[in-house]
């Protein structure tokens, strides 16, 4: 500001320069935050909904959303961080990608952030160091697995959403025998559905969610143990209910089969809700992965997908923390959940979601226990890569070219080759 006062007698040119400097000074007092993100699809939502809402309560902080396309995000961010030109806020991929950034000193430690108390432990685990001591990103959104079903087909065949496994297979059998619909729309051509929508979807009920995941990490349980073999056994039982030629059926084929009304049940990730809302002209609902006996505790895969952290070299640390604290509020959770149905806020607040199917998915959090995909934390760090192996063996188990026991043995052998706690 000194500049502005002392320029009165100076020439026009310097005057203009000083004014410019002055205005920069003003802006810095107000501070501007820029967000690095891979969600270029959400740019409008950020600019039109989220940032204006934030500015209502914090008019002094300017926020800009600067996304990079998803495929380029990781490498572009790495380069920007190295060059010191990255934004103040960094959208974090879960687990190792962000952990690597933290280890290299690019992310601020968030342990003292007040907003963190609004998040459950599971949600935070995706952005912690292996010992759970340092938190470097704030959880933003997760995706939930379950089954989406065609309500009209269910009504026509007098079916209700199954609660137990026995009911589940009865429903599948009824659809197969009493109608021309494909009972379940899933293929194994892309392999990842078999692992993600199959194994990680129904598995938590077998390995008891977090308990099993932690036991696998500590080496107390092995992939050859009963819960895992049983998960693959159930997958093998899906085979007769999949469409003909499911071995060559791709993810988009499955989506189309369902939205065209040719298939009754679709093993889903909550992100599919948006696609189905746009394409299906019938009503659809959702049910969580069925449990063994009625009344059993249910477990769901509530997978942490997106977090947000602070660039350690940002000059606006204080403002960035204000923004992160706001992102941990109920206000943000509600805004975000409704703007992007299928991506669920991770904070503990009860959020009203207008989309009925997204609401159904969200409601499972209250009655079931949440966990994340068991291959994501630490276990996919070595060679062979556990996640890749799960894709391969789960697809093979469904194809019938591998038994559940062989699948268990192959993945366990792979893990034992490099993971110390499993070598005991």
């Amino acid at each position, binding site marked *: 500001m000194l500049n502005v006062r002392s320029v009165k007698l100076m020439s026009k040119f310097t005057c203009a320069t000083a004014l410019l400097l002055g205005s920069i000074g003003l802006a810095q007092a107000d501070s501007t935050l820029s967000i690095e993100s891979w969600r270029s699809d959400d740019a409008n939502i950020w600019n039109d909904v989220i940032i204006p809402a934030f500015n209502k309560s914090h008019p002094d902080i300017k926020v800009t959303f600067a996304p990079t396309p998803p495929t380029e995000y990781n490498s572009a961010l790495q380069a920007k961080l190295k060059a010191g030109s990255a934004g103040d806020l960094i959208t974090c991929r879960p687990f190792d990608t962000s952990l690597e950034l933290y280890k290299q000193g690019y992310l601020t430690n968030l342990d003292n952030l007040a907003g963190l108390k609004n998040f459950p432990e599971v949600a935070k685990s995706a952005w912690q160091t292996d010992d759970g001591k340092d938190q470097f990103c704030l959880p933003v959104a997760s995706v939930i697995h379950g089954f989406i079903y065609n309500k009209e087909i269910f009504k026509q065949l007098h079916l209700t959403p199954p609660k137990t496994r026995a009911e589940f297979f009865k429903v599948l059998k009824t659809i197969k025998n009493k109608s021309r619909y494909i009972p379940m729309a899933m293929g194994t*051509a*892309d392999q990842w559905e078999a692992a993600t929508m199959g194994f990680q979807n129904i598995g938590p009920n077998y390995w008891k969610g977090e308990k099993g995941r932690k036991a696998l990490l500590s080496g107390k349980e092995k992939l050859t143990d009963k819960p895992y073999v049983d998960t693959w056994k159930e997958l093998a039982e899906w085979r007769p209910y999949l*469409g003909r030629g*499911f071995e060559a059926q*791709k993810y988009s084929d499955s989506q189309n089969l369902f939205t065209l009304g040719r298939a009754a049940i679709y093993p889903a990730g909550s992100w599919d809700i948006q696609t189905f809302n746009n394409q299906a002209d019938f009503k659809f609902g959702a049910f969580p992965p069925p449990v063994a006996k009625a009344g059993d505790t249910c477990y769901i895969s509530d997978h942490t997908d997106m977090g947000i952290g602070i660039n350690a070299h940002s000059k606006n640390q204080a403002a960035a923390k204000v923004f992160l604290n706001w992102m941990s509020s109920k206000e943000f959770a509600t805004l975000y959940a409704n703007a992007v149905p299928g991506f669920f806020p991770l904070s503990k607040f009860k959020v009203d979601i207008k989309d009925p199917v997204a609401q159904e998915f969200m409601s499972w959090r209250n009655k079931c226990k949440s966990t994340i995909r068991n291959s994501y934390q630490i276990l996919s760090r070595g060679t062979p890569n556990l*996640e*890749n192996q799960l894709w391969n063996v789960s697809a093979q188990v469904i*194809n019938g*070219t591998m038994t559940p026991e062989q699948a268990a043995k192959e993945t366990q052998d*792979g893990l034992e080759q490099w993971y110390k706690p499993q070598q005991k």
Partner: protein
Amino acid sequence: MTSSNQHDEKKPFPWHLVFFLGPGLLIYVVFSVYPLLDTLVLSLYQEQDGHSSFVGLQNFITLITDDTWSHAFWNALANNFEFFAIHMLLQNPIGLILAVLLSSPKLRLSSTYRTLIFMPTMLSVVIIGFVWQLLLSPIWGIAENFLYDIGLGQYFDAWLGKESSALITLGFISVWQFVGIPMMLIYATLLNIPDDIIDASVVDGANSFQTFWHIKLPLILPTIAMVSILTFVANFNAFELIYAVKGALAGPNFSTDLMGTFFYRTFFGFQLQQGSASMGAAVATLMFLIILVGVMLFLFFIQRRIQRFQF
């Protein structure tokens, strides 16, 4: 002699050679030779916690002997040979037959056929992969109905999804796409054969098959040899079709994994698998060596024995 020497001394430095060769050479060195040498060097290093250290041939030893790597490597190599065999047994003979048919003077509309057969070669591999997936899809595809119409319906299967048939199916798709190249090259050579040689053989009483076998075939052998070596190099660098149709994990159970997809997974990583530049460079180096050995064997044992004819 002396006069010519004097003549040479007077000659100014051939700047025009530099002018004409320079740009091409520069681009070739910067974008081809240097990256190749850099890859070779990179494959001798190992990266750990951000530091790279010289490890000699360790990457190659791991790749060939360590079970976690060698299994995938040998599998990809074997698949690659199978893929190559499919092309040698189908693409080149079919290309040859098509070229002979096209060069027949009795054939009408030959330029139309030529264009149509060459068309797929000009299309993007991604489109080819997409179209064939749809054609062969058990859900939407027309292949099944077509087979029923000709009475072979019971043989239809989800070919692209079965371990036993996926690679062969992809091989067929690739043959369908690229059959135009051997056809064009051989066709051009056939057109170059002077009519008087063929006339002479007819006068000598050869039928059309004998003409082909004794006159045309020996004359196009150098072209067939060149087509073979092109096929070899292209097949061992193949990647796009597999990636477009089956993804980088080359399923089911890696039955369609080629050296190219194996390299891609190793170098760039896949999903949760972190890429390794040095290990990837080792795979790339092995691919280069395999192609180099193949081409050298070809040069020493085949190329030198081929007789060339000048008309």
